[in-house]
Protein backbone atom coordinates (compact mmCIF):
# COMPACT_ATOMS: atom_id res chain seq x y z
CA UNK A 1 0.00 0.00 0.00
CA UNK A 2 1.43 3.32 -1.06
CA UNK A 3 -1.50 5.72 -0.75
CA UNK A 4 -2.34 7.91 2.23
CA UNK A 5 -5.49 7.12 4.24
CA UNK A 6 -8.93 8.63 3.67
CA UNK A 7 -8.63 9.10 -0.09
CA UNK A 8 -11.99 7.85 -1.31
CA UNK A 9 -13.17 4.25 -1.09
CA UNK A 10 -9.81 3.01 -2.31
CA UNK A 11 -8.69 1.51 0.98
CA UNK A 12 -11.99 -0.18 1.79
CA UNK A 13 -11.90 -1.91 -1.59
CA UNK A 14 -8.27 -2.93 -1.21
CA UNK A 15 -8.99 -4.36 2.23
CA UNK A 16 -11.94 -6.28 0.77
CA UNK A 17 -9.52 -7.93 -1.65
CA UNK A 18 -7.17 -8.79 1.18
CA UNK A 19 -9.92 -10.22 3.40
CA UNK A 20 -11.38 -12.23 0.50
CA UNK A 21 -7.97 -13.65 -0.29
CA UNK A 22 -7.42 -14.59 3.35
CA UNK A 23 -10.93 -16.06 3.61
CA UNK A 24 -10.03 -18.44 0.77
CA UNK A 25 -7.06 -19.71 2.82
CA UNK A 26 -4.37 -17.92 0.86
CA UNK A 27 -1.38 -16.41 2.62
CA UNK A 28 -1.38 -12.63 2.39
CA UNK A 29 1.32 -10.14 3.25
CA UNK A 30 0.92 -6.38 3.17
CA UNK A 31 3.77 -3.99 2.56
CA UNK A 32 3.22 -0.37 3.59
CA UNK A 33 5.49 2.03 1.74
CA UNK A 34 5.62 5.73 0.84
CA UNK A 35 2.49 7.52 2.14
CA UNK A 36 0.96 4.09 2.72
CA UNK A 37 2.70 3.92 6.11
CA UNK A 38 0.29 6.67 7.24
CA UNK A 39 -2.58 4.16 6.92
CA UNK A 40 -1.49 2.67 10.24
CA UNK A 41 -0.79 5.86 12.15
CA UNK A 42 -2.46 6.08 15.55
CA UNK A 43 -4.75 8.92 16.59
CA UNK A 44 -6.76 9.40 13.40
CA UNK A 45 -10.27 10.74 13.88
CA UNK A 46 -11.89 10.30 10.46
CA UNK A 47 -15.41 10.18 11.91
CA UNK A 48 -15.18 13.92 12.53
CA UNK A 49 -15.28 14.34 8.76
CA UNK A 50 -17.82 11.59 8.21
CA UNK A 51 -15.12 9.30 6.87
CA UNK A 52 -14.82 5.59 7.52
CA UNK A 53 -12.94 4.44 10.60
CA UNK A 54 -10.39 2.45 8.63
CA UNK A 55 -8.42 1.54 11.76
CA UNK A 56 -11.30 -0.78 12.70
CA UNK A 57 -10.96 -2.65 9.38
CA UNK A 58 -7.21 -2.92 9.80
CA UNK A 59 -7.62 -4.45 13.23
CA UNK A 60 -9.98 -7.04 11.65
CA UNK A 61 -7.01 -8.35 9.65
CA UNK A 62 -5.92 -10.36 12.66
CA UNK A 63 -9.27 -12.20 12.73
CA UNK A 64 -8.53 -13.35 9.18
CA UNK A 65 -5.06 -14.43 10.22
CA UNK A 66 -3.38 -11.72 8.15
CA UNK A 67 -0.36 -11.02 10.33
CA UNK A 68 2.47 -10.59 7.82
CA UNK A 69 2.58 -6.80 7.85
CA UNK A 70 5.69 -4.97 6.69
CA UNK A 71 6.51 -1.27 6.78
CA UNK A 72 9.38 0.15 4.79
CA UNK A 73 11.95 1.64 7.15
CA UNK A 74 12.82 4.59 4.91
CA UNK A 75 9.15 5.56 4.40
CA UNK A 76 8.52 5.58 8.15
CA UNK A 77 11.58 7.62 9.03
CA UNK A 78 10.98 10.11 6.21
CA UNK A 79 7.60 10.85 7.81
CA UNK A 80 8.92 11.01 11.36
CA UNK A 81 7.18 7.78 12.36
CA UNK A 82 8.32 4.85 14.45
CA UNK A 83 6.72 1.43 14.95
CA UNK A 84 5.27 2.71 18.24
CA UNK A 85 3.17 5.22 16.25
CA UNK A 86 1.33 2.46 14.40
CA UNK A 87 -1.93 0.73 15.37
CA UNK A 88 -0.71 -2.77 14.46
CA UNK A 89 2.55 -4.64 15.00
CA UNK A 90 4.58 -4.53 11.79
CA UNK A 91 7.94 -5.80 10.74
CA UNK A 92 10.31 -3.10 9.51
CA UNK A 93 11.89 -3.84 6.17
CA UNK A 94 14.66 -1.85 4.51
CA UNK A 95 14.07 -0.68 0.95
CA UNK A 96 16.91 -2.85 -0.30
CA UNK A 97 15.03 -5.96 0.90
CA UNK A 98 11.66 -5.15 -0.67
CA UNK A 99 12.58 -6.92 -3.88
CA UNK A 100 13.34 -10.20 -2.12
CA UNK A 101 10.07 -9.89 -0.15
CA UNK A 102 8.16 -9.59 -3.43
CA UNK A 103 9.98 -12.57 -4.91
CA UNK A 104 8.64 -14.72 -2.07
CA UNK A 105 5.05 -14.16 -3.32
CA UNK A 106 3.17 -15.66 -6.29
CA UNK A 107 0.88 -12.70 -6.96
CA UNK A 108 1.64 -9.04 -6.35
CA UNK A 109 -1.22 -6.54 -6.33
CA UNK A 110 0.04 -2.96 -6.61
CA UNK A 111 -2.03 -0.44 -4.76
Amino acid sequence: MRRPPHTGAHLQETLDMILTTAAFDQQVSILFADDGVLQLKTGQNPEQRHLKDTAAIFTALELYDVRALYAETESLSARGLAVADLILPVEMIDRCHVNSLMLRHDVIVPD
Partner: protein
Amino acid sequence: MKFAVQLNASPYHSNAGLDAYCFINAALQAGHEIVRVFFYKDGIYHGFRYATPPDDEIQFNRDWSALAAEHQIDLVLCISAAQRRGLLCADEARCQGKLDDDLAPGFRLAGLGQWLEAALLADRCIVFG
Protein backbone atom coordinates in the same frame (compact mmCIF):
# COMPACT_ATOMS: atom_id res chain seq x y z
CA MET B 1 0.24 -18.45 -21.22
CA LYS B 2 -2.84 -17.76 -19.10
CA PHE B 3 -3.38 -14.16 -18.02
CA ALA B 4 -5.73 -12.77 -15.38
CA VAL B 5 -6.38 -9.08 -15.89
CA GLN B 6 -7.63 -6.63 -13.30
CA LEU B 7 -8.72 -3.13 -14.27
CA ASN B 8 -9.11 -0.53 -11.52
CA ALA B 9 -9.36 2.73 -13.47
CA SER B 10 -12.34 4.47 -15.07
CA PRO B 11 -12.42 5.13 -18.84
CA TYR B 12 -11.80 8.87 -18.52
CA HIS B 13 -9.41 9.14 -15.62
CA SER B 14 -6.38 7.65 -17.35
CA ASN B 15 -5.34 5.45 -20.25
CA ALA B 16 -5.23 2.35 -18.04
CA GLY B 17 -8.43 1.01 -19.59
CA LEU B 18 -7.11 1.50 -23.11
CA ASP B 19 -3.82 -0.13 -22.12
CA ALA B 20 -5.68 -3.11 -20.69
CA TYR B 21 -7.84 -3.41 -23.80
CA CYS B 22 -4.82 -3.23 -26.13
CA PHE B 23 -2.87 -5.69 -23.99
CA ILE B 24 -5.71 -8.21 -24.08
CA ASN B 25 -6.01 -7.92 -27.86
CA ALA B 26 -2.27 -8.35 -28.29
CA ALA B 27 -2.22 -11.34 -25.94
CA LEU B 28 -5.07 -13.01 -27.82
CA GLN B 29 -3.40 -12.40 -31.16
CA ALA B 30 -0.24 -14.01 -29.82
CA GLY B 31 -2.23 -17.10 -28.86
CA HIS B 32 -2.41 -16.52 -25.10
CA GLU B 33 -5.46 -17.13 -22.98
CA ILE B 34 -7.30 -14.51 -20.94
CA VAL B 35 -8.74 -16.34 -17.94
CA ARG B 36 -10.89 -13.43 -16.88
CA VAL B 37 -11.00 -9.65 -16.83
CA PHE B 38 -12.00 -8.41 -13.40
CA PHE B 39 -13.23 -4.83 -13.16
CA TYR B 40 -12.74 -3.36 -9.72
CA LYS B 41 -12.73 0.04 -8.03
CA ASP B 42 -13.37 2.76 -10.66
CA GLY B 43 -12.90 0.13 -13.39
CA ILE B 44 -16.61 -0.50 -12.81
CA TYR B 45 -17.33 2.50 -15.04
CA HIS B 46 -16.39 0.42 -18.09
CA GLY B 47 -19.50 -1.71 -17.67
CA PHE B 48 -22.28 0.86 -17.86
CA ARG B 49 -24.70 0.04 -20.66
CA TYR B 50 -25.80 3.61 -21.22
CA ALA B 51 -22.43 5.37 -21.20
CA THR B 52 -22.66 7.49 -24.33
CA PRO B 53 -19.45 9.31 -25.12
CA PRO B 54 -19.23 11.56 -28.22
CA ASP B 55 -18.97 9.65 -31.51
CA ASP B 56 -15.34 10.59 -32.09
CA GLU B 57 -14.18 9.10 -28.76
CA ILE B 58 -13.45 5.53 -27.73
CA GLN B 59 -16.66 3.63 -27.02
CA PHE B 60 -15.37 1.46 -24.21
CA ASN B 61 -18.52 -0.36 -23.23
CA ARG B 62 -19.22 -1.24 -26.88
CA ASP B 63 -15.61 -2.35 -27.45
CA TRP B 64 -15.56 -4.56 -24.34
CA SER B 65 -18.89 -6.10 -25.31
CA ALA B 66 -17.58 -6.83 -28.82
CA LEU B 67 -14.41 -8.34 -27.38
CA ALA B 68 -16.43 -10.59 -25.07
CA ALA B 69 -18.67 -11.69 -27.93
CA GLU B 70 -15.82 -12.37 -30.34
CA HIS B 71 -13.44 -14.19 -28.00
CA GLN B 72 -15.82 -15.46 -25.27
CA ILE B 73 -13.88 -13.54 -22.64
CA ASP B 74 -15.30 -13.52 -19.15
CA LEU B 75 -15.82 -9.88 -18.16
CA VAL B 76 -16.65 -9.67 -14.47
CA LEU B 77 -17.56 -6.54 -12.54
CA CYS B 78 -17.19 -6.72 -8.77
CA ILE B 79 -20.72 -6.67 -7.41
CA SER B 80 -20.06 -4.61 -4.28
CA ALA B 81 -17.88 -2.08 -6.13
CA ALA B 82 -20.62 -1.86 -8.79
CA GLN B 83 -23.45 -1.27 -6.32
CA ARG B 84 -21.40 1.41 -4.61
CA ARG B 85 -21.21 3.20 -7.98
CA GLY B 86 -24.83 2.71 -8.99
CA LEU B 87 -24.44 -0.11 -11.48
CA LEU B 88 -27.08 -2.74 -10.84
CA CYS B 89 -27.87 -5.98 -12.67
CA ALA B 90 -31.49 -6.81 -13.51
CA ASP B 91 -32.11 -8.86 -10.34
CA GLU B 92 -30.61 -6.29 -8.03
CA ALA B 93 -32.39 -3.42 -9.80
CA ARG B 94 -35.70 -5.21 -9.19
CA CYS B 95 -34.86 -5.82 -5.51
CA GLN B 96 -33.98 -2.18 -5.01
CA GLY B 97 -37.07 -0.94 -6.80
CA LYS B 98 -35.06 0.54 -9.69
CA LEU B 99 -36.36 0.59 -13.22
CA ASP B 100 -33.63 -0.85 -15.36
CA ASP B 101 -30.50 -2.90 -15.44
CA ASP B 102 -27.40 -0.92 -16.33
CA LEU B 103 -25.08 -3.76 -17.24
CA ALA B 104 -23.55 -3.57 -20.73
CA PRO B 105 -23.81 -6.78 -22.81
CA GLY B 106 -21.06 -9.31 -22.22
CA PHE B 107 -20.42 -8.27 -18.61
CA ARG B 108 -21.56 -10.07 -15.50
CA LEU B 109 -21.53 -9.15 -11.82
CA ALA B 110 -19.86 -11.43 -9.30
CA GLY B 111 -17.88 -11.35 -6.07
CA LEU B 112 -14.21 -10.95 -5.35
CA GLY B 113 -13.91 -14.74 -5.18
CA GLN B 114 -13.97 -14.64 -8.99
CA TRP B 115 -10.97 -12.33 -8.99
CA LEU B 116 -9.10 -14.62 -6.64
CA GLU B 117 -9.99 -17.70 -8.66
CA ALA B 118 -8.68 -16.06 -11.83
CA ALA B 119 -5.48 -15.05 -10.04
CA LEU B 120 -4.93 -18.63 -8.90
CA LEU B 121 -5.75 -20.18 -12.29
CA ALA B 122 -3.55 -17.82 -14.30
CA ASP B 123 0.17 -17.96 -14.91
CA ARG B 124 0.37 -14.17 -14.69
CA CYS B 125 -1.84 -11.52 -13.06
CA ILE B 126 -1.71 -8.05 -14.52
CA VAL B 127 -3.26 -5.05 -12.79
CA PHE B 128 -4.09 -1.93 -14.80
CA GLY B 129 -4.83 1.36 -13.04
